[in-house]
């Protein structure tokens, strides 16, 4: 043993490293499956690996044994590459993160393979030299040990090649299985993250900006042969331009840029609709339809939004953990709604425990109206639906909506809501608002479809702001505990 290797008397660095390794594993599990710790804690924890890595790399260079040196370097590779992946994840550099993740996994595979080949080769040589030293003969017995070149399944010719191929295949399979197992740790977990930032839950101000447009003055040559009618005397035209004054940032909480204090840099506002049995849940979905609203939301609020709208089955709502679940899901259709008992329970859990919200839109029938109300009677039996007042915050922020816009009054002319603890957990629009968002806007007048966009923005914003308030409250409750 050299002086640089850890001795029994100097085990403190090794012990500390072991403790840190356990912490690292815990952080890693939290990142992929538990979602309990805030991002900054994880970032701090993973960054703490850097001095440890530096310490061990420096120590590795001083080691005389090349095997130990490379072993230490190999182990150091894992937290180092992971730190790079996590850093890019935190900074929302998605493309770079994907490259780093691939390189990292590729590196682990190659390093592992090299160690496997080295180990097999060494073990094989030892067996061979031991056999030669003992002048032992193979005889007729079958050898099963894969480290032994004389194993029967390697044949009589090109045994080394066969052993190498077997090692490669076995290692690759083992790596694949381990990879899949680790992925399974996360299960089908999925997270929803709001965009980071801040702002106020306030009404947008409509202001009129006056622009003076000075008309061109013409100098006329009275002796010219060209006939010219002089322009009118008033040469100053007032152009009144109505603009939306962004006197504040649309968002909620303390933070820079439009977004939510409880969000993350990589977070985005997503538009997720629910898939359910029995009906046409996919009405007006995707490009040229509900994506229009998502784009409008991004443009009008300045918040980051997803590139596409999405859909999830009701059971998939269970995959979202508490605190990282969608603040709002959209539900529409015009046929029937058929939900199982467990789906009803999942919806209840989503609305009450995960602080979610359903934005329902009657896509075209009075039947859907009564079916949705029946569904809600099962989901929230202790909550009565009430008409959402026009001066409620959901109708005022960020846009003040003076009337309820709709395409056709399939379910009446009033918006209904289910309120729990002062929060709308369900907002029901009776008149196909999704049709107004779609290209062509169902042929309704500009002021109606514009109001439909504004209402859509309001509901999406309301859900996210309320979710953020809840995250704040949870954080404070956690602090107190």
């Amino acid at each position, binding site marked *: 043993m050299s002086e640089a290797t850890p001795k029994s008397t100097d085990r403190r660095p090794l012990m500390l490293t072991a403790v840190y390794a356990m912490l690292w594993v815990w952080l890693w599990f939290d990142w992929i499956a538990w979602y309990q710790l805030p991002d900054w804690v994880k970032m701090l924890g993973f960054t703490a690996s850097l001095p440890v890595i530096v310490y061990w790399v420096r120590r590795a260079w001083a080691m005389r044994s090349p095997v130990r040196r490379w072993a230490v370097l190999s182990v150091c590779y894992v937290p180092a590459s992971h730190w790079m992946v996590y850093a890019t994840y935190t900074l929302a550099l998605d493309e770079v993160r994907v490259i780093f993740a691939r390189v990292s996994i590729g590196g682990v595979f190659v390093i592992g393979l090299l160690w496997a080949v080295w180990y097999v080769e060494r073990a094989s040589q030892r067996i061979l030299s031991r056999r030669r030293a003992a002048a032992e003969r193979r005889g007729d017995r079958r050898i099963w040990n894969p480290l032994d070149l004389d194993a029967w399944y390697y044949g009589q010719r090109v045994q080394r090649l066969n052993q190498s191929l077997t090692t490669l295949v076995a290692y690759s399979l083992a790596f694949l299985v381990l990879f899949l197992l680790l992925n399974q740790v996360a299960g089908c977990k999925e997270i929803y993250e709001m965009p980071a930032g801040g702002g106020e839950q306030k009404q947008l101000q409509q202001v009129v900006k006056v622009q003076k447009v000075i008309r061109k003055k013409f100098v006329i040559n009275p002796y010219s042969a060209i006939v010219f009618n002089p322009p009118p005397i008033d040469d100053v035209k007032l152009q009144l331009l109505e603009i939306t004054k962004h006197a504040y940032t649309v968002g909620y909480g303390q933070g820079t840029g439009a977004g939510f204090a409880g969000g993350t840099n990589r977070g985005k506002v997503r538009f997720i609709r629910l898939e359910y049995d029995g009906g046409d849940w996919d009405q007006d979905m995707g490009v040229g339809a509900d994506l229009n609203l998502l784009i409008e939301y991004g443009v009008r609020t300045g918040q980051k939004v997803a590139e596409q709208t999405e859909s999830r089955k009701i059971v998939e709502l269970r995959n979202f953990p508490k605190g990282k679940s969608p603040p709002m899901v959209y539900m529409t259709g015009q046929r029937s709604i058929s939900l199982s008992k467990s789906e009803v329970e999942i919806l209840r859990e989503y609305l009450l425990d995960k602080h979610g919200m359903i934005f329902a839109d009657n896509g075209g029938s009075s039947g859907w109206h009564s079916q949705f109300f029946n569904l809600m009677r099962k989901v929230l039996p202790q909550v009565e639906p009430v*008409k959402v007042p026009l001066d409620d915050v959901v109708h005022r922020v960020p846009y003040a909506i003076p009337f309820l816009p709709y395409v056709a009054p399939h379910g009446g002319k009033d918006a209904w809501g289910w309120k729990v603890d002062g929060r709308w957990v369900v907002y029901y629009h009776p008149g196909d608002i999704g049709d107004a968002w779609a290209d062509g806007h*169902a042929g*309704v007048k500009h002021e109606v479809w514009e109001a439909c966009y504004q209402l859509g923005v309001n509901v999406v914003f309301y859900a996210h702001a309320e979710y953020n308030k809840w995250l704040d409250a949870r954080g404070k409750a956690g602090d107190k505990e």
Partner: protein
Amino acid sequence: MDPQMHTDGDVSDRAIARGQGGCSRVSPSTIAAVCICGAVLLASLTPASAARLDDLEQMPIDTFAKLREVEKYQLQVAEKMYLDEKWAVAQAEYEKFLQLYERSVGAPYAQLMWSNCQRNQRKVNTAIRDGYQSVLDYWPDSREAIVASYMIGRSYQDIGEPAKAKKAYAQLIADHPNHVVAVKAKVNLVEIARVEEDNDRRVELWKDLTYNTKRDKENGRYCADAARDLAQHYLNKASFDDALKALETTWKDHELTYRVFEVSRGPIRNLLDQADKKAAGAQLADKVVAYITSQVPADQSDEQAKRRAREYWFWIAEVQAYARRDDQVIKTYEQMVDRFGADDELLDHMAGWFRGHDRRDEARRIYGKFKDQARGQGNIAYMYREERKYDDAIKIYQDLMTTDADRADNYQWAIAECYEDSGKLKEAIQTFRQTDRYPSNYMRMASCQRRLKQYNEALVLYNQVLSDNGTAPQAMLEIGYTYEQAGDKEKAIKGFQRVCKAFPTSGQASRAHAHLQSEYKITITLGGSKDDK
């Protein structure tokens, strides 16, 4: 304040002042005319027109009497708009009153009504914050302040804030325990407790309303409802005596017997449906039957007592039916036949019971005993239709057309329906054509034509019906469906679009809109919400 409004008010004041000060110079005929006009104006303002307002929306007569004419006039204008449900205009008028007559005794009322206008425009938060609360802040001792306190609670309840509503109601009940709004508040608290499934609280409130509230003309019906609900609660627990005690607080004699019968049926069935409470259900049924029997007048010499006795026997039979005691039901009816004779009403009840229990031959036999043969035979024919024995039904209807010629058109229609239901569509069309029920018969004929795949004929009929305003939207929609069935999608789409265009606010347009969207991926406007602003 709007200067124009000031001017108007001043002019009115001046006009009245002139009227009062210059009477001696005006001729007697003019004075008479003015008096008549004044009387008409007063009559239009006082309870006759105000009767359409809700109790809490009316101004007390003594307050009203103190108002000046101009104030009354302004309130009349506002009230007219309010009753016409022109909330925004009414709100402006009440606001005008407040600006012009801020110190009037009618100001708290105007402020209250302004808040109601906001509420009716679905601006409930504004109504609470800027309306009802202002009444409480500026006129805390007024009658309107009490109403405003109640309305705050009601408004919170309406916007899904039961916790705030409960708080407001509790305060109101503590401050004004004897006012009618306190009773209303308790009724609303019962409703909140129902939603929250807090049964103990409901019972507590019902008891309070039933036993502890002094009844008067205004709160009587709320207390009566509470007594009824409390009785039902006790009956669901098979506690007949407690239920009777609750009902006795409100009703007596015949009405009490009726209430016992009315509220006991549901609980009897509920208890019998629960395996562990069947015995309690049977016991309860026995008690109810015994109670009603004890109320049957002993002396049935006069016609009224006899009629009442019959009625009670019918109730006993019904209670037995709810208790699923078929033999007792038949026995009761048989006893009735013995006591009162077999008239058509009694036979109808009996036959109805047999029909309901799938003893159809017995039912038919009883219908056959009807004194009004046409009615009895009509019921038998209808039973045949239920059993899909259309030929038998048609035969009876055909006989009835000759024996009961006054209702021949009804029988003709029934025959046509029999043909339609039995798939004899050509005969159905012919028979519908002979009836006088336009446009319903044309719609039914067209429907038969469509089933026969004679789409052109159906379209001709639907187009003829278009001249009838009431049926036109449905006929137009059916034209679309007919083209669709005929495979002419282009014309079908045009048909559906036509419905949306011609009758955009109708239910048919909504269906056409949805159908176009789901089947053809075509969106068409129904105008949107432009009228709602």
